[in-house]
């Protein structure tokens, strides 16, 4: 298993950096272009979901884990406000549609969203 972790200011303007890494890692995992696009959108949405809850001036941690046929993206921010991510909004709907697995956790200190994308069988 390979792991890549990015730490960025918890600010929407930095999300594009995560997206750039997404393309490269998605390609490395042999995802199809559709799936890479999906993962891009998932990265956008996961960050959009988390950033409003991030503590001021904190750090967004974006971690990719990839192994044969599977890539896992986890975004997390420190969040003292204790609320979980909004599951009734657009971002959640979109994330559910895009992910093979979708998890969220909030322990009152760190809020995170985990998205798993599995590779489709490549045989034509």
């Amino acid at each position, binding site marked *: 298993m390979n792991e890549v972790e990015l730490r960025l200011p918890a600010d929407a303007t930095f999300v594009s950096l995560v997206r750039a890494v997404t393309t490269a890692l998605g*390609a490395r995992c042999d995802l*199809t272009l559709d799936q890479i696009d*999906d993962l*891009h959108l998932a990265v*956008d949405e996961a960050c959009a979901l988390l950033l409003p809850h991030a503590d001021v001036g904190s750090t967004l941690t974006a971690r990719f884990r990839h192994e044969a046929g599977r890539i896992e993206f986890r975004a997390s921010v420190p969040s003292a406000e204790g609320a979980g991510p909004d599951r*009734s*909004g*657009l*971002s959640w*709907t979109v994330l559910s549609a895009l992910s093979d697995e979708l998890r969220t956790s909030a322990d009152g200190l760190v809020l995170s969203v985990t998205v798993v994308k599995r590779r489709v069988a490549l045989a034509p």
Partner: protein
Amino acid sequence: MTHHGARDPSARAEASRLFAEMGALPEDSERRRRVRDQLAEMHLPLVEYLARRFTGRNEPFPDLVQVGAIGLLKAIDRFEPERGLEFSTYATPTILGEIKRHFRDTGWLLHVPRRAQELQARLATARAELSQELRRAPTVRELATRLEVSQDDVIEALDVSRAYSGVPLDALTETDSGPVDNALLSELDDQLERVEQRAVLRPALETLPRREREVLMLRFLAGKSQTEIAQIVGVSQMQVSRLISRSLARLREELSRPAAASDPT
């Protein structure tokens, strides 16, 4: 080290002789202009050496040398030999500065991915062909093999295609008048009524042009892949991809307006 052009002692001596001569000549003299040209020519290898460090960015090498040469000329005009600095040491930051400014001004975005833009056109074709052949979207590896380029090149071209719309998105939304004849869409409309989030989503979806709404519903309610949507709606997969990300950004904006914001408490 001879690649900097004026590093060997005799060349260095020649350069300082020319600088001294140039300094003594009046600004508008013909002789001065020729000495200046001579100095420029002599130091061109330095420009080439520095320009080569930027070739990874897809800017044609001759263009970089040309831009760097402007920096070289500026350095020649401003150089003060009496300060005891070697010319190449003095000129290097000026040349680099000029090349960097070129990237900044002319838009790294406009010039750099020229090769990637060329590749992008072929990429779109290959992507469509492979989608047909494989009956699914291709991977980066498959595209790279088909196009006989590296995977990194494909990734770069993909990022370019995301950053630019080769075909303006309007071309897609303009066709709003032509309804997509697909039973699935009317089913989706019914389905949307039942979606848990409809109270939030519906008003936001209503703000989108019909074609965008359709594409979003196909993707997120019907779970169709981008390639499938492209076939249903009759546009390229890349357009679908761009349309989805644009629509989502719009929706997010719409939903974050105070009126539509959900109250967590």
